[in-house]
Structure formats: C-alpha cells, structure tokens
C-alpha cells in the first residue's frame, strides 16, 4: 500500500536529521584528527559516506 505523501516526507525529514547528526559528528572527528595531527583517512571516508547519504536523502526529499 502506498504511503501517505505527507507521512513519507515526515519520515524522510527524520532520516535526514539522523544522518545529519552523524555527519556532523563525523565532521567534528575529522577536524579534531586534523588539528591533533592524527591519521585522517578513515574519519574522512566515514565523513564522505555520511555526506553522500545525506545528499541522497535531501535529493529524495526535494523530489517528493
């Protein structure tokens, strides 16, 4: 059964919020690693993954 468009948008916004929270946490981790001179490859990969997910979710929300 097709979901109500309003409910779908609300769920999408919640997903954006959740992914956004973790994307910000990943960004803070990258900045902290850079400032402290620690290896930044893995935090950067995680940040890119979350950013890509967030971008996809925002795009889906705009289309709906």
């Amino acid at each position, binding site marked *: 059964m097709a979901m109500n468009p309003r409910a779908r*948008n609300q769920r999408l916004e*919640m*997903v*954006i*919020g*959740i992914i956004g*929270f973790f994307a910000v946490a990943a960004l803070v981790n990258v900045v902290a690693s850079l400032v402290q001179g620690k290896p930044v490859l893995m935090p950067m990969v995680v940040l890119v993954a979350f950013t890509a997910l967030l971008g996809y979710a925002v795009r889906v929300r705009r289309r709906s």
Partner: protein
Amino acid sequence: MASVTTTGSEIQTSTPAPPHRGSGVRWGAIGSYAGIAAIVIWCLAPFYWMVVTAFRDVGYTFDTTPWPTHVTLDNFRTAFSTDLGNHLARALVNSVIIGICTTAIALIVGVFAAYALSRLQFRGKFIVLGVVLGASMFPGVALLTPLFQLFTNIHWIGTYQALIIPDISFALPLTVYTLTAFFAEMPWELEQAAKIDGCTPGQAFRLVLLPLAAPGLFTTAILAFISSWNEYLLASELSNDSTQPVTVAIAGFTGAQPHQEPYTTVMAAGTIVTIPLVIMVLLFQRRIVAGLTAGGVKG
C-alpha cells in the same frame, strides 16, 4: 447475525452456526499461557536467583538448590558495612541525587522542546526530531574518552555535575521523544479554548496542557530516572570514591580476602538497589502503560 434471503415467494432465514466450542481442551489458550509463563520465567529468573543468593549463607554461594536455603541476613549487613571499604549507603545517596537532578533537568528542558515539536509549525521540525533520535543512538562508549579529557581539563572529575550532565544527554532524547508523542495526541481545541478565555500561550501551556500531560510526564520521569539509576559506563570513569553511584560501588565491592569476589554481598546490594525501581514501577504502572501507549494510535 441472522440473514434473510428472498428467492421469489420463498423466504429463507439462515442463522450461522454457533462457534465451535471444541471438546473442552482449548489449545490456543494453553499455548498463550505457556508463552506468557516462558517470558515471565525468562525475564524474572535472573532476579529470582539474585534474591535467593542474597539471602544465602556465604559458605553456600554456589549451591544450586533453586529455592532459598541456609537463609541469613548477613549479606545485607556486609553490603552496608564500611569495614572492607565498601560504601553502599553513600553510593545510594549519590545515585538518588544524580537521578533526581538528571530527571528534573531533562524533564524541564524536554517538556518545552516536546511542546514546540508537537504544537508549533515550523520548517524542518522533523529534521530536529531526527537529530534528537540520532543523538539517542549515539554510542555512550564513544563519549567516554573525550568527556574524561574534557572534565580532567576543567577539574570536574569526581564532581556531581560530571555525572549529571552526560546522563542528561542520554535522558533528554528519551524525554523529548516520549513527550512529543504525548503532546501530539492532546486536542488542539483545549489550547484554543484557553486562549479564547484570555490565556496567553504560556498560561495555556502551564495551566491547561501541563496538568493534562501528567501521565506522560510521570512516565517520562520514571524512564529518565531508571536510565540514570542504571548508568554505569560513564560513572565508572568520571566519579571518585565520594561521588560514585551504586552501579560503580557494587562493581568495586571487595571481599574479606584478596582476590575474593563477594558474590553474596553483591547480590544483596543488587537486591537493595532494585527495590526502589520495583516499588516505583509498581506504584505507577498504570500511568507508565498509559504514557507509553499514548501516541501509538492516531485518530
């Protein structure tokens, strides 16, 4: 229900047969009760074993008799005794202080946030709710090292605020989420009627909505208190001897001999710690269920 069918001049009345009563053995009901019994045993067996061991003489700690044998109250005396460096009474007071402060602050902040999220219309409302949900998913262990570093730098290690503030960060998402569902269920007309009668939005919230939201507030307060009461991970690193809560105090119990684990004393302390929660849940169980199920059904 009887039904009447007309075929030409013939009128037929058909009544459905009464439900089949079976031969007396109701396998469905038996299965349900067996399932309930299995779940109850599964959930309560560890607590039962804790209580049985708490009342058992220390010489019979590993006795596997499933009912209390060699009953004694010595374990409870030892748990409260400070001779071995254990401070359960002080830890209980600490846990109560931390729990009450955490619950009060989380509830005060959470009630306003939940009201805004459920009642006010603004862009990105559900994104904020998603962020709140995301914060509640964040693993506590990831916060341990940064918090330890931060609190060491500002000389907060071993203080109450070092234990209360992280606890609030765990209790607040729970508070906001539960109360948002509760406020969303309340009829808009109440607030509008209060405004027509001359209330400001603040007065309508304080005098009309808050009293009606009491079951939800109770539920949320109890859940926040329980989450704070049971917190161990952060407290084990951020507290010291004078501020440690019960969870940390029990884990640090020492026996009479070196390297001796005082299982019966730990079980007695566990029983003492569980009692306030059990009493609270029994007293407010109806409100808890009402509050938890609020928002579950729309319309």
